[in-house]
């Protein structure tokens, strides 16, 4: 066997991603994801039920206040299934983003004592949240049966939408996780901004409600295109807005590149300042 030679020296500027190393450590990615899931299900009384209760109760409240009282339009489909299909992706995004943002400082001891590619930590956080998504999706399935919705070929686009949402949450997660190591303000700022963000994303209301410049402004939020496409891909109640989805994909990719680049350029200081 030809042993590999590693050179350790100060790095400067933008650091490339060592894909070979990431592949070597793929098992650790699995173990981090597995650890967090296992611990969560051991420590909480009703484990996975939380993943269902959170969107379900939110949907009930939205239905009462926005659907019944405020008579919010919902693209001609029942408000419960309208809001739930949006919430499902929205909650995945916010949970993934929040977990990723706190992930590096959450594994402080490991970061300062053991070497492994730091990217694995926020990545496992956003991957793990797909388990919650899967559980919460069961309720959407039930709602679809109840309201007699049939799957259309548009569902084939769902994996693409999920990958894009994952890229968005992970890219922003890298950025915030790295900033969090240096500026602990982030820890308090993230949940607050995430709460505000739902109002500029068509979860409670349909995008068709916003006209003129508001429509254009909302479209700049990549989650707008993703939530709308997610709803249309599953429910098939309207055609997928491809230009909007394309714009979201572009924004997502830009944000992902920015996030991962920033993370890679500061990760070498993590162990020193964490």
């Amino acid at each position, binding site marked *: 066997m030809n042993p590999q030679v590693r050179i350790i020296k100060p790095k400067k500027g933008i650091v490339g991603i060592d894909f070979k190393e990431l592949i070597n450590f793929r098992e650790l990615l699995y173990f981090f994801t597995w650890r967090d899931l296992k611990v969560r299900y*051991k420590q909480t009384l009703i484990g996975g039920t939380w993943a269902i209760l959170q969107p379900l109760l939110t949907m009930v409240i939205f239905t009462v206040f926005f659907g019944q009282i405020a008579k919010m339009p919902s693209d001609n489909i029942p408000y419960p299934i309208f809001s739930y299909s949006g919430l499902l992706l929205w909650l995945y995004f916010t949970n993934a983003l929040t977990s990723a943002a706190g992930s590096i400082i959450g594994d402080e001891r490991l970061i300062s004592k053991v070497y492994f590619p730091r990217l694995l930590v926020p990545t496992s956080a956003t991957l793990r949240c797909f388990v919650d998504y899967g559980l919460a999706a069961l309720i959407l399935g039930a709602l679809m049966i109840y309201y007699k919705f049939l799957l259309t070929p548009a569902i084939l686009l769902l994996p693409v939408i999920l990958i894009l949402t994952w890229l968005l949450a992970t890219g922003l997660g890298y950025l915030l996780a790295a900033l969090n190591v240096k*500026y602990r303000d982030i820890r308090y700022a993230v949940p607050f901004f995430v709460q505000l963000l739902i109002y500029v994303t068509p979860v409670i209301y349909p995008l068709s409600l916003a006209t003129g410049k508001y429509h254009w402004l909302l479209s700049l939020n990549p989650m707008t295109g993703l939530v709308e496409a997610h709803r249309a891909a599953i429910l098939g109640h309207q055609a997928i807005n491809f230009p909007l989805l394309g714009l979201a994909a572009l924004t997502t990719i830009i944000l992902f590149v920015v996030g991962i680049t920033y993370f890679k350029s500061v990760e070498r200081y993590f162990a020193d300042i964490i």
Partner: protein
Amino acid sequence: MDAIKVQGIGKKYKRGQYAGYLTLRDSLMGLFKRPQTDNPLSKKEFWALQDISFEVKEGEVIGIIGSNGAGKSTLLKILTGITEPTAGTALIKGRVGSLLEVGTGFHPELTGRENIYLNGAILGMPRSEIRRKFDQIVDFAGVEQFIDTPVKRFSSGMQVRLAFAVAAHLEPEILLIDEVLAVGDAAFQKKSLAKMEEVTQKQGRTILFVSHNMEAIQNLCETCVWLDNGQVKMIGQTKQVIEAYLKSSVINQAVKKFSAKQNKEAQINKITVKNATGQVTTVLDFACPFSIEIEYELAKDIPQFFLMLKIGHESVREKYVLIGLSNDNNYPNPTKKGKYKAVVIIPPFLNTGRYNFFVALTTHMIPYLDSSESISITLNQLSSSPYPMIHRNPESQVLIPLKWNITQPF
């Protein structure tokens, strides 16, 4: 062939207010402050390591010694890739495994079995390898009955044994070890040491071994690097380096003579530090008692005269670990004119490290009739520690086994 080649490695840290994380406010405020001058080492920075160079041959076991803060752990952190050097390069040939702090990757909620897999993965072991060695690991740690119990219910000794067992079964070409042998009870330490010897001698692995345990270093390493203040002070045969290191940690002489002063009612003539076997030295085994002999003279009768001994850690000023008075107990405490010799026995209760002590001749009325300068003593781990678990915690200055009585009165 060199397995590790370190050339001019240096690491600069910031200290004080700006060390560690910032708040956004600090950074924003920083924008409005005058930019730092181009002085390469501003006041807030210091070199934790500077210009470190050495080579380790394949299959060689090299020890790294030095007092706390000499840069030993920083060096290992650089070689494992946890942190980056500020200057210099290091070439490493082969897979590196590190045993930096035992049990770092353990999660208290997970069972022993789950933690073995998790910790193995963190240390870079493929799952297939962990599975193959699983029984060996459990057997070595001696935790068979508890393997499916959450680790939080393990005793600390069991946790440490399990963690060491996982790490000891790693099979990288290069192994970096930081102070792992100072864990567990005496029997387990012995077993760990034997395992380390097996790993180095039979398997021919390259090992970098950091420890305060001179005995372990001597047993395991042919070559030794002595780091002092972030620099290499000496490299060579372990025995010689250790001897030089132990000698150097004596700042003051073990025998301190004081010249006669004019018009003193009482004066200290000589202070001698002796170890448990009566040798005159200031390098002491923290696990053994040592004695301080004070020769002094009273020029006249001094009613209420007594001696005072203050011992403090070198890093702390004006606070002491212990203050002893010669009239504390019912020992004879002469106050008449004459020459005397007082012998104080200090039982083993201090953790390893450097301590200063001084002696004063005094009464309750006058501040000091005479006092010595501070005399430095070094407590090292020269033999297997009787307090292994306490020793692991460097924050503890005093090592005294406590009596606990836990009941359920309700």
